[in-house]
């Protein structure tokens, strides 16, 4: 994409009402809510670390 088309979606972001997905620290959700922004929170957890042998078995099954 060239300069003008490239900036178009970003320009839309500046002028549209923000609809935010916050993934991680919930203080950022709280801050946006306090500013009247529409926000949903994703409570993210790290993927479980499996023992290598279980991982191998699972990867064959899936």
């Amino acid at each position: 994409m060239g300069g003008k088309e490239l900036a178009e979606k970003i320009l839309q972001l500046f002028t549209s009402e923000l609809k935010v997905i916050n993934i991680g620290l919930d203080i950022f959700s709280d801050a946006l809510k306090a500013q009247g922004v529409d926000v949903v929170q994703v409570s993210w957890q790290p993927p479980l670390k499996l023992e290598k042998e279980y991982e191998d078995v699972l990867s064959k099954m899936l």
Partner: protein
Amino acid sequence: MSKASNIVKRNFHRDSVQLLHLSEEAKRIDGVKDAAVVMGTTTNKEILEKLGLLTDDGRAALESDMILAVIADSQALIAKAMQQIEEMILKPPSVKGRAFYSVDAALQAVPDANLAIVSIPGEHARGVVLKLLDKGVSVHLFSDHVPPEHELELKQYAKEKGLIVMGPGAGTSIIGGKAIAFANVVKRGGIGIVAAAGTGLQEVSVLLSEAGLGISEGLGTGGGDVKTRIGGMMTLQSIDALEQDPATGTVVVVSKPPDADVKQAVLDHIAKKTKKRYVICFVGPQSYEIPASVRARVTGTKTLHAAVIEVVRAADPTRHAEITKQFVMSGNELAAFADGISKGLNEKQRYIRGLYTGGTLAYETLVMLGPMIGDVYSNAPLDPKLKLADSYRSVKDSIVDLGEEEFTVGRAHPMIDPTIRKMRLVEEAKDPEVAVVVMDFMLGYGSHSDPAGAMLGAISDAKKMAARDGRVLPMLAHVCGTEQDPQSLSEQTAKLRNAGVEVLATNALMAIESALISRRGKITTSILEGAYKNFLEGF
């Protein structure tokens, strides 16, 4: 007799801010003298050790383990407290409003989402950000430690899709007038900011807002964007967007010195592809060449302070002096102010100690102090030879960035958690050679709800400690915030002034003032004039 006890929960994860809240809650349990709930990182274990909160059980914890630490007067009290803490950590984190447990579910529920903030551990960011970009969502990527090859991939993909990835390591953005992550409540207006330096964006936007000029958009790109490997991809894209944005009249580009090729690419891009008024702020000791053809509309600066002055000059040339009066103190005024403070010092007291939470502000201070006082040590120095051997111990003149990795792995940033700075201030007070302590206080969304108030105990302890030793310990502060911030600039300033801390209007003025106090009378008029010319205005 007080006793410390630890319980280690294997492979148990909460994010750093949740842990900070859990620690605060744990300290309030009846009978508990001190407590902490942390991940078992080296930094956290060192801090627990210093607080007398670590036992052999905790020492053996791994980074993926959680340590519950308590000090209380009896085994019975410890057992009771631990039981309560165990209940607290098992409660799922409370979320107000709608919450999801997967990005896919959130994307399905909000198909018209246009922005995401991602603050998960950096090694996991790639997959999450790709999913968001696929659905047309721009991303503010707060996470650090994103592998460089992932950063490149994500930014290339964003560029293809016409979207923006701010970060990794983007602390601050202001979009459509809303503060994203660590950002202040600033007036809206015609100044657009592109920043590869988070607290740089905060200082510039706050000072412009206080000067009555508003901000259209503030786009944080993260420091990695101006490295050769990324080539300034999002910086250039942000410049293009602001160039086309009808609400933006003047653009400020803020960064620590980019890699040489990126610096040239940004300057060339501005010279050839833009028409608006630009103020470039590559915070650093070196000048750089503004192409001759655009010098009438493009100004270079070396500090955040100078960038603000030049933006005001460009935006309102007739009222420039009047508007910037609040940020400007003459060399004579600063020197007289310094004399008043330094006359109480004894002759051994000759060094500056800077305890910063804002990385760009720490850097600005390093840039300015060099030509005035010579070598300055730091955990993030300008010259690698001046790197502190131990970030926890200051040497001679030292400026410490407490937001650097060694202080933050597995902990909340010092803009949220004052613990490390409180401990460090008391340490500095023990050193009879310290002449003056300088500190920044970052307000705004995301930051601590009362950063000045949180330091008052440590400020008072440090001053008392010096007094017992027959010394005074002057302290300078700069409060980076606006009256409209949740913490209120005037309230935070008043708290510090009531505690005997001198508050300066900009970080740059604080840097000059600290040099004048510590070197009493040894900074000649020509050095001072040089600092003013080099660092408080543009070229």
